[in-house]
């Protein structure tokens, strides 16, 4: 996809989201014969850990020595530090008047940088999240607009400040009123996105008529829509949006099959650069080791980006309720440990959990760095952010949100550094979208600016 046609497409998408049935592209790849003209797309991924970190273990002591002596929490990222960026001084959303809901709002404010509507707090009424803003612009170019992953069911029921309980376990919002459910079963993702077996690229199980059938179902739904009151129509639009995405995905699989067949016959132009790494293999783990489970979700995220199945993802490493880490020899819950009252022993447990989570993120980005794409690596073309919605879980503070960005963002991010700045969560998200080349016509949540120090040029 060259930059010019990308812009045209962007214009055509602007303001209408994916409500429009997009004409199918001839290919979902980006490579071509002329390497100068084509540039891999930029992908944006978010990975979450609740409850904050141990600050002394997380923030680099000396900016000069960021590369040579990284803080203990991010030791696992050492091999890719040059492609990492840490920024201190980004504050979270002040949660007043929901002071009694520090955990219910960790996730839901993370990518929206805004608070739920206090007057309708019992309903989902917040704002579209940054990942979905991105999906509105680039989601139409891929089989799946965005990918939502998690490791725990999003069903926690706990009433905090009368807030809708969905706020507790969702970070991605398609619109102010629609929370995006995440998938927790790796096999489902693999089957649905890449075909029926554990190997990518194998034949899908779709009936050849499914696409035309879905077309007709959609036209039937439009008839139904006319008969319904307004609120019902909105609900039906959500359905229509997602069925169109299914149609598109079937089309992309068909396209891939066609290309594979042509390639086999020796007549096809390749979808990707010859030098690009082949799609990674996915192995679904047996047993219930948390690290393996988290890593297979990482692999799926990588595969989705690598095959340009989607360009936007969120991955909730765990929700704020009751996750345990028997693998680290800890029997209590993550949340209880974070109220450590500055006791060294408990703090070391929180530090261990944090390192564990960051090492899963490191697993993902290191693998991305090993995959060739275009003139560089997959990671060069990604913006991967790992972070938490609290700074200090002990006191529920959010002055300096802990996060790490890995990836070059197609050359847009100034990496290999630790910088200190003054800004908020909305500014950060706005900056990341800008790096992706997405024009944002309204500030994201409490944003007031872009953080230029993070960017090249």
């Amino acid at each position, binding site marked *: 996809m060259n930059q010019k046609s990308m812009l045209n497409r962007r214009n055509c998408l602007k303001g209408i989201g994916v409500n429009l049935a997009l004409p199918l592209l001839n290919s979902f790849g980006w490579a071509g014969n002329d390497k100068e003209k084509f540039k891999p797309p930029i992908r944006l991924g978010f990975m979450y850990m609740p409850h904050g970190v141990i600050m002394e273990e997380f923030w680099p002591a000396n900016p000069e020595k960021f590369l040579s002596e990284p803080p203990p929490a991010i030791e696992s990222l050492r091999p890719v530090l040059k492609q990492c960026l840490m920024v201190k001084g980004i504050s979270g959303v002040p949660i007043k008047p929901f002071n009694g809901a520090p955990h219910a709002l960790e996730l839901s404010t993370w990518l929206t940088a805004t608070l739920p509507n206090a007057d309708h707090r*019992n309903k989902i009424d917040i704002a579209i999240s940054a990942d979905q803003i991105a999906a509105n612009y680039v989601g139409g170019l891929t089989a799946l607009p965005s990918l939502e992953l998690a490791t725990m069911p999003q069903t926690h029921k706990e009433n905090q400040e009368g807030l809708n309980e969905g706020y507790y376990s969702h970070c991605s919002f398609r619109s102010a009123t629609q929370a995006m459910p995440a998938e927790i079963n790796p096999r489902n993702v693999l089957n649905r996105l890449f075909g029926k077996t554990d190997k990518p690229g194998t034949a899908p199980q779709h009936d050849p008529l499914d696409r035309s059938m879905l077309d007709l179902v959609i036209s039937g739904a439009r008839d139904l829509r006319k008969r319904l009151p307004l609120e019902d129509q909105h609900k039906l639009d959500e359905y229509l949006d997602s069925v169109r995405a299914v149609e598109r995905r079937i089309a992309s699989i068909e396209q891939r099959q066609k290309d594979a067949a042509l390639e086999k016959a020796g007549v096809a132009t390749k979808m990707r650069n010859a030098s690009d790494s082949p799609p990674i293999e996915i192995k679904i783990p047996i047993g219930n080791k948390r690290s393996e489970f988290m890593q297979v979700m990482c692999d799926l995220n990588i595969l989705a980006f690598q095959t340009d199945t989607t360009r936007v993802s969120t991955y909730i490493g765990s929700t704020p309720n009751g996750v345990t880490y028997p693998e680290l020899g800890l029997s209590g819950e993550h949340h209880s440990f974070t109220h450590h009252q500055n006791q060294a022993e408990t703090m070391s447990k929180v530090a261990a959990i944090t390192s564990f989570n960051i090492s899963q993120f490191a697993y993902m980005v290191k693998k991305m760095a090993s995959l060739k794409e275009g003139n560089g690596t997959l990671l060069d073309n990604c913006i991967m952010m790992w972070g938490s919605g609290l700074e200090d879980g002990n006191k529920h503070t959010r002055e300096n949100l802990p996060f790490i960005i890995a990836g070059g963002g197609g050359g847009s991010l100034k990496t290999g550094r630790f910088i200190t700045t003054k800004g908020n969560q909305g500014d950060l998200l706005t900056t990341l979208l800008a790096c992706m080349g997405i024009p944002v016509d309204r500030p994201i949540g409490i944003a007031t600016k872009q953080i230029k120090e993070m960017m090249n040029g």
Partner: protein
Amino acid sequence: MLAIAFVSPGIAGEEDISEKKRAEILKTFRDSPFLNKYCIECHGKNNRVKKGDVSFANAIKRPGAGEFRKQWQATFVNVKEHSMPPVDAKNQPTDEERRKFLELIPLIKYLNPKDPGLYVIRRLNNVEYGNTLHDFLGVDPSVAKDLPDEVPGEGYLNTLSPLQTEQYLAIANEALNRSLGPKEGPPTTRQKLLFGNTPSSVNDWRETARKVSTSLARNAYRRPPTNEEIDVLLRIFDLSRNNKLNYQSSMRMVLKAMLVSPQFLFITPAKETSENEAIIPLDNHQLASRLSYFLWSTMPDSELSNLADLGKLQEPDILRNQVKRMLLDSRSRALFDGFGSQWLGIKDLKDKRFDPKKFPGMTPELRTAMYDEVRLLFDSIIRENQSILNFIGSNYTFVNEDLAKIYGIKENINGPQMRRIEIMDANRGGILGMPGILAMTSFPDRTSAVKRGAWVLEQVLGERIPPPPPNVPALEKQDKNKVANLTLRQRTELHRTNAVCANCHKIMDPIGFGLENFDAIGRWRDKDDSGAPIDAAGELPGGFKFNSPKELKAIIASRKEDLARNLSEKMLAYALCRQIEGYDQIVVDRLLENIQKDDYRMQSLVTEIVTSYPFTHRRVK
């Protein structure tokens, strides 16, 4: 204590009041000196004045709005109990002023115009979807097991992602394969049952397809399909024919299309709404579906569907009879799995981890038996139309061999099947003495008086406990030296030395202490882990004293109004798939009056909910 008996002098029993009366109440309320004199100085001269994050600036503008309901409840309690205005405030109201204000607050509910709430088209949740496939196609509901777990009822998000929609297509394929046999094979019996025999003349195929589609869609869409909808299905039939599929295969494609249509995945109205109406009764078919998914978590059966077709469901007697019939049907088990287990907080018992060293006997089988015990009690109260007060005071329960051991029952009870037994020990019986509940409200390795107390207050009595303030250490984080020689009870009592904590813990903790005779998996004990004798004595607000679980149970059981109000509100919210707000308050008051006359019987409660205004009506704009 926090639940409020809303007395409403003069207008009790009225479903709605006139605009004029409403304006009068609003005026009286706004003119009342109490708020201005004693409250707003700290809580809302304007939006920024909100000590303790409480402000009346907005609440006074729209006192009836649903979002302020909890605030008015808290206000009522605080003023009634003299916690507000604070004792050290310079202005103190007289008892007379206090009394007058307390009479006003309950009138707020009348400020809400009669409103059933929106009933936006609702997607079937993962359980309902699996059950519906079962009833429609005869496949096991587990065909839908790959769909993500969802919160049913109140708190249901009614949303979906592209990935999930993709699953619907895959599940439709799988369900058809299981129900009809493989695509390429000869027509199976069920296939013939659904699609009929292939008409001998090709010329008749389309007309037959029209008839068959119409009857299939009636079931799949749970209402008569419109002509437009049949046309769409026939276009799918034509599409298949044009691609050289035979009659049977083309019909299979039509059926698949139905399964991924919004008319199958959502509960949709049968009738178009007219432009100028704001509130309408549910049409017969939508009501049948709402009822069926409420009680059975599945589609209406033929009897209910026939009544809907005849247009009879809006007749109250017929609707009542259907509720009774449906509650006695085995499918009503879904009401426990969907609602009861959530209400009583034991939905996750099967997944809860216990310390294997301390409780090696806590096997998956035992946890299942514990869950089933609660389920069977719930079920028997429904079937036998008992009073809901028996949730506290029942004198029987259900055990199998494993569970009998937890109870310390000596009689011969062998095998894994659950059976009903009488209970002689008054400390047991009812949900407060049930191992499943007691285990669910414990930590993996020990009991928690706080958790148990909070559970009783919130789940059983419907009170709202604010979350703990930040920066308070949980019990295990307290200074080890200071607390080394204290019992768990004494340590827990430390909560109450901190004024911030004391407010809630002085109510919560004693209830938990009263249940300390039950260990973390519900076995009786006279001594705690350290060997100290259990002290199960306590006192609740109002001077109610107790010395044992038995006496605590009696005190809880005496709070009939609170028990009934809580269960009614929670079940209504589940039935409506939304929180209770605004006008619902009047609905619940009316409902309580009615079920109280019938000794709080369970079937009456469910019937009152189904026949209530918000269940049978919807606002469309």
